[in-house]
């Protein structure tokens, strides 16, 4: 029995968040508001008493008492106002976070069909931008209206108490304002809607003209395009003026009503004082109270506008996500337990929202442990069928039965425990290789930690699955390319030094042509300029290779050996070229692999390039100079081909290297440990330490040989597991963009295999792999025959003999089903698929 999830989130009203879980905070707020209202009125009474009683009686001690009370009331009111603001923020932000968490949780569980019609940008902007004003509203929802209405009422009551006639006449303007202002606001809202539509039209027109600018130039149709734009711009002008008039109208009418108050007080109050019906102090208190009416009134009007805005946005966001999830998440009642993996598909239909049938009366049986291949032309429904079986989409008719249980009725928990799904475009999360490897297992354990959790895989388990999927050598390479922490793993470093000796002794000769060895007198084209100058391992943080641009002493050294100016020119050229080539390139690490400009510095580089159009390098500030120098110091000629390394700079760098040894011994004796054949090079990767140089060739043939030798050396030193564990800490970048397509797909396969699902569904899961890797995965599936059920959507038809059954699909139907050999000899659709249509 599957437990239904709470789907009411999108149906909740905005007001429901005001009190939920915040009653005590809201009550505290109310108490403070009551106190503050009293403290706001108190000074008015004190004011009146000072004018009416104290001045006439000339009682200075009473004057002092009243002044102290006045001071106390004003100070306390200010302090409490701060507390109210703090409480408002706390309530608003808590509610905001809660709404975001619950809405996001709801969004993640929405059907896949929702995400086909909704862009990722819409989801994130709804969550981040559109919901933000609701925090303001919820924080204010009680405090602002209650405090301001109470203040208004208190002042109104006080005015009536002071002089009933004058009070009632003065207050009579507010009901009129309450009648007029909402009407004006409605007009403003309408005009605002038209403004948004008008702006969209103008935007579309501009986009169209600019996209087809070559046509505009070709036809010389400048005036035609201008005319289209001008017509829309004039329409927008009218709309905007009306909108602004309404907006200002609200303000003006509000100010008018507020301004009329004192006029009435002077006219009527003055008359009553002259007649001797009220005292002068009453008029003073009256004018003060009336002036103070303005603030709560203004705040109420602003609150009204914030409410309108928040309400519109909140409704829009909730409407966007007002869909229900297709499957229950957790199992309630007795667990289904581990299934055998028998699969039955009965009269299965899947239709899109528009009624197009992607699957039409599909029938199929796969016995537990059988391997089934799904083949067919593009769009034949293979992936849709795989997704129906894996409970990724909800079918519209018929059933998919897993050990006799309908997949549609099973909870997500039972599905993820028993079924592993590998998609063609597997998504890799940011984080490390290890995080991604454990993703499926952790997801499975997250359902019910007290239920049937499986132990997190051990390092051996992970290495095994990496080897099975052919990813192990890549992970090992990540480990070998790691720069170890300065003060850690000394034991490991000693072993690596022994590996260096063994490499030189056994394989040095063979790889001599493929390694650029570190040599005091040779320029390293596969190293950065900074590495070429320092030619050692920085021991102090301020001499870290990435921080030399900020190091004043090092800048002095560059000046002394005439390196500063050529480095500045090189850096500027690198930045200019990068900005020119990349333009507004997406902010992805991938594009920055061939330039010394860093992704995080790119925006600064764009600004700098603009600045350098008008200024010379000498006019730049220290930060800009540091950016340029750092960029130049990161320049690796063999990698960053956007500029050439000038011979003069190369010569100066080599001279600089010699100078630096003497200079650093004198100025920073503890700053750098120079490269030595007998020392571990802390600034270099494990691999470069083994070679005592840089690998300059990465051809498949050389790589294969090298991998064999390195694995041999690592095994010899008992380092294989340690280095692969280091490799598993490799950060794969955003969406795994530091991995190749093949590596991403192998990782996606490995993470599912780690959880040992009874039913494995592979939806073209090896399409990004080369033949060798596909063969390896296929070989991996062989021993699973008879134990694990495999459903595999494949496009490589030469793999068919590895399957027990093949289902050939065409236009949403299974047109052939049987053993691969039988179907081939029948010379039907499968034969046609393999050999092409015969005459």
């Amino acid at each position, binding site marked *: 029995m599957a437990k239904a999830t709470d789907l009411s989130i999108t149906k909740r009203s905005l007001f429901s968040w005001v009190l939920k879980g915040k009653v005590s905070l809201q009550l505290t707020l109310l108490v403070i508001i009551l106190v503050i209202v009293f403290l706001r009125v108190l000074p008015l009474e004190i004011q009146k008493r000072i004018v009416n009683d104290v001045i006439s009686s000339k009682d200075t001690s009473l004057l002092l008492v009243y002044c102290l009370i006045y001071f106390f009331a004003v100070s306390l009111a200010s302090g409490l106002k701060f507390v109210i603001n703090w409480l408002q923020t706390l309530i608003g932000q808590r509610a905001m976070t809660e709404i975001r968490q619950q809405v996001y949780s709801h969004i993640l569980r929405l059907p896949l069909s929702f995400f086909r019609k909704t862009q990722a940008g819409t989801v994130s902007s709804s969550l981040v931008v559109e919901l933000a004003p609701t925090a303001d509203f919820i924080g204010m929802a009680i405090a602002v209206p209650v405090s301001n209405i109470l203040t208004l009422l208190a002042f109104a009551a006080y005015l009536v108490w002071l002089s009933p006639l004058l009070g009632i006449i003065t207050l009579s303007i507010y009901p009129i304002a309450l009648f007029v202002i909402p009407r004006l606001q409605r007009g403003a809202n309408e005009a605002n809607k038209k403004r948004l539509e008008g702006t969209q039209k103008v935007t579309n027109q501009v986009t169209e003209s600019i996209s087809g600018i070559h046509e505009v130039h070709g036809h010389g149709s400048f005036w035609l395009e201008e005319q289209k734009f001008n017509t829309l711009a004039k329409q927008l002008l009218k709309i905007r003026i009306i909108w602004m008039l309404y907006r200002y109208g609200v303000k003006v009418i509000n100010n008018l009503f507020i301004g009329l108050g004192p006029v009435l007080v002077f006219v009527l109050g003055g008359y009553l004082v002259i007649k001797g019906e009220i005292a002068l102090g009453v008029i003073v208190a009256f004018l003060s109270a009336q002036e103070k009416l303005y603030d709560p009134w203004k705040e109420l009007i602003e609150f009204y506008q914030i409410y309108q805005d928040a309400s519109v946005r909140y409704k829009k966001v909730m409407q966007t996500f007002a869909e229900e999830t297709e499957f229950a998440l957790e199992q309630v009642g007795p667990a289904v337990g581990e299934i055998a993996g028998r699969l039955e598909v009965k009269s299965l239909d899947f239709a899109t929202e528009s009624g197009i049938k992607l699957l039409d009366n599909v029938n199929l049986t796969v016995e537990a442990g059988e391997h089934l291949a799904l083949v067919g032309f593009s769009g034949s429904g293979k992936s849709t069928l795989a997704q129906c079986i894996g409970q990724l989409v909800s079918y519209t008719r018929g059933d998919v039965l897993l050990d006799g249980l309908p997949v549609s009725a099973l909870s997500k928990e039972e599905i993820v425990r028993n079924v592993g799904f590998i998609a063609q475009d597997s998504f890799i999360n940011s984080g490390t290789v290890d995080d991604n490897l454990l993703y499926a297992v952790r997801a499975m354990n997250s359902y019910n930690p007290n239920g049937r959790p499986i132990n997190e895989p051990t390092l051996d388990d992970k290495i095994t699955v990496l080897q099975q999927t052919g990813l192990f050598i890549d992970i090992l390479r990540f480990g070998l390319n790691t720069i170890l922490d300065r003060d850690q793993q000394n034991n490991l470093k000693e072993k690596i030094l022994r590996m260096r000796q063994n490499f030189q002794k056994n394989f040095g000769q063979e790889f001599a042509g493929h390694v650029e060895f570190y040599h005091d007198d040779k320029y390293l084209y596969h190293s950065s300029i900074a590495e070429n100058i320092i030619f050692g391992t920085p021991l102090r943080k301020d001499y870290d290779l990435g921080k030399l641009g900020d190091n004043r002493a090092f800048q002095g050294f560059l000046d002394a050996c005439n390196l500063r100016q050529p480095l500045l020119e090189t850096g500027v050229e690198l930045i200019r070229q990068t900005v020119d*080539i990349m333009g507004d*390139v997406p902010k992805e690490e991938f594009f920055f692999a061939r330039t010394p400009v860093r992704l995080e510095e790119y925006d600064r580089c764009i600004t700098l390039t603009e600045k350098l159009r008008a200024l010379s390098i000498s006019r730049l500030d220290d930060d800009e100079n540091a950016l340029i120098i750092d960029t130049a110091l990161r320049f690796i000629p063999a990698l960053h081909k956007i500029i050439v390394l000038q*011979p003069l700079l190369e010569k100066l760098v080599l001279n600089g290297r010699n100078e630096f040894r003497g200079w650093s011994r004198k100025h920073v004796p503890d700053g750098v440990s120079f490269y030595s054949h007998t020392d571990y090079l802390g600034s270099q990767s494990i691999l470069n330490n083994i070679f005592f140089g840089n690998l*300059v060739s990465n051809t498949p043939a050389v790589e294969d040989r090298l991998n064999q030798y390195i694995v041999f050396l690592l095994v010899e030193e008992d380092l294989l597991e340690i280095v692969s564990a280091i490799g598993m800490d490799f950060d794969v970048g955003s969406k795994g963009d530091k991995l190749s397509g093949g590596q991403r797909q192998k990782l996606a396969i490995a993470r599912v295999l780690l959880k040992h699902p009874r039913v494995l569904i592979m939806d073209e899961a090896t399409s990004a792999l080369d*033949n060798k890797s596909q063969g390896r995965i296929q070989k991996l599936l062989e021993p699973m025959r008879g134990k694990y059920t495999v459903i595999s959507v494949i496009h490589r038809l030469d793999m068919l003999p590895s399957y027990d059954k093949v289902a050939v699909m065409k236009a949403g139907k299974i047109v052939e089903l049987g053993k691969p050999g039988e179907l081939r000899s029948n010379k039907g659709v499968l034969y046609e698929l393999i050999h092409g249509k015969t005459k």
Partner: protein
Amino acid sequence: MSLSTEKPSEYGLNRSGFHQDLEHLRQIPMLSGLEYGCLKLLAMLCRTIDFRTDEQLIVAGEDNDCAYFIVSGRLVASYTEDETEHAVREFNSGHFICGAALLGSEPALFGLQAAEDTKVMCLHREEFQKAMQKFPNGISQIAASLVSDLVRWDRSMLAMQRKTGEPDYSSVGVSLL
């Protein structure tokens, strides 16, 4: 084969590897219609590789994910049937081959080998497709260029058949695809 590191003396040249590769890209009909900005990005992303004589660039049956522009040297494409290798075509300096590999993944029908020491400019599918995300209009330009190539191919095949005197048109018609 080795990744070209451009020997030290070549660093003295004023033209960077980037500019040379940009020139090469502009000579490739399939890519020459792309925006200049797109070509510059591709020129930054592609690599120059030196293959020694007999080194294999593509193994038949493998997924080749690279397109090659021959800067210097000579390559031979071959087809293997019943363990017998048949030379199909030779490609020389200035030829651009395997452009379709940039668009999709399919096992290669032909092997490709260096007939002599050869320098190629190599553009990977992943790099190309990433660049196309930034310049999405480029895909339609490339598709149009491929369609023209198919028609040109059929025309030349038809002309070839006509020359034989006893034309057999059953194997032409790739542009009908």
